[in-house]
């Protein structure tokens, strides 16, 4: 079968240039960041030392914009304070040397990890936590003691709408609401604080001082 005749040189040049222009447009439109690359060696150090910190930029997943720049440890020291039904508070658990978390910023996964460990160790249980219904407290107990504990316990882990935080000089303060959203269907109760958590880099937990006039995060709302 005879092959198709080759187009003229001018036509080949024109169509090649058209294609290259299209491909160039795709590259320019899709990869603007590539054009700004001054060097690719040690991208981690380059990105952090030369770009992010001097320009005041932050990692895209950073949860608390007010955190000091050095506060991205993999181990977060944590102090958990339970708020009892009568409004009094007590320290439930402390990890002064830090609780290892999946990511170096304090976010949902930290709260997940924290709640999982607290529940798994039995350091917090339903009746000691304000705000839970009887059914939720029973579910806590069942989950803690009985079958498939890991799976069930993770169901009790909080999600972002169930905790809030503020950044203070001594650390990040969180209010964690432990309402069992998947079992209790009590979303309307999420507004009640149940646990106060102070988080800061490992080894920097301040001493426990019972506040005479507890701040709102400590009392719960």
């Amino acid at each position, binding site marked *: 079968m005879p092959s198709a005749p080759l187009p003229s*040189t001018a036509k080949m040049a024109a*169509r090649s240039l058209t294609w290259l222009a299209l491909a160039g447009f795709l590259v320019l439109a899709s990869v603007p960041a590539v054009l700004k690359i001054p060097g690719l060696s040690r991208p981690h150090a380059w990105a*952090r030392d030369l770009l992010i910190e001097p320009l005041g930029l932050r990692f895209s997943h950073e949860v608390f914009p007010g955190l000091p720049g050095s506060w991205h440890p993999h181990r977060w020291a944590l102090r958990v304070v339970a708020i009892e039904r009568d409004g009094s508070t007590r320290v439930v658990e402390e990890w002064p040397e830090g609780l290892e978390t999946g990511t170096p910023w304090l976010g949902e996964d930290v709260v997940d990890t924290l709640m999982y460990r607290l529940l798994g160790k039995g350091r917090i249980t339903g009746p000691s936590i304000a705000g839970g219904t009887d059914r939720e407290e029973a579910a806590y107990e069942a989950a803690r003691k009985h079958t498939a504990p890991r799976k069930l316990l993770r169901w009790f882990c909080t999600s972002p709408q169930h905790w809030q935080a503020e950044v203070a000089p001594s650390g990040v303060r969180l209010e964690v609401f432990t309402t069992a959203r998947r079992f209790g269907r009590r979303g309307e109760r999420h507004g009640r604080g149940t646990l106060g958590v102070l988080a800061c880099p490992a080894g920097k937990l301040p001493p426990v001082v019972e506040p005479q006039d507890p701040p709102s995060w400590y009392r719960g709302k």
Partner: protein
Amino acid sequence: MRRLIYAVDHAIFAPLPAAPLGAARALLGLSCLMAWSFTLPRLGALYGPGGAAAIFGSPRGAHWTEGALLPLEIGLLVGSLGLMLGAWTRTSALLLAACHTALIGRLDTWTWGWGTTTPLFVLLVAFGGGGAAASVDAWRAGGRRPGAAVGPAEISGWGPRLLWVHMGCIYLAAAWHRVDDEAWLTGHILWEALTSGVFSRWVALDFTSVAGPLRFLAYFAWGLELAAPLLLLLRPTRALTAALCIGLHAGLEISTTVGWWQFIMGSCLCAALPAELWRPVLHRLLGPRG
């Protein structure tokens, strides 16, 4: 100079097998058809008056679409079906891309990226020769004979090659975007995604015991994305790279919920799989009977 022009022209326009791009077009049309069929019952809640787009959407979006939901949805479904079947492929692709852009432009942040990138994929596949094989267009062009829908053996290579460049750009942009992302740098991203209530399909499972393998997979995926732009363009590595990337997207689809992105990329990657894989399939499905 003449030699150089010839070499460049040959590198771009040398024929390539038609079957892979035809299969990719059919799968891309099917993905779009699935996406917009699933959206159909929620169209009013998403894009109608007082819907999510009106509350959370982009103020630059085309607000006239609120009153034209039914024609737009019909356009999306007809365009998707036309692309899938390869019927009036280019017209179908234009219709699909236009309706898609009009709607998605109002709520692009909710689509995890597939909303804004799909129209270009659709146009590249359709105008790059995707309708030549495995299509109604091929059947019509072949005199409506039995088996004519399989189409020609080869097409001009500029379309598939432009598609690979575009896919390479997507991977390169995704991979470079991650160099200042702590979760990727430390390899914790998969652990984070799988335990995230936003992304994970399996948020109730505990992944602590597989943190090591997840870290390996995270680095592997990142490496693949960084290398794919080059490896997709080189013939010896193209098929294996496409297969690995399809596996990557399949894994993401199984483990996370990020819209239709995996379907779109997976479909287009089929254009880089070997023709020997697609030809028997097309002949069995569309070839002459008896």
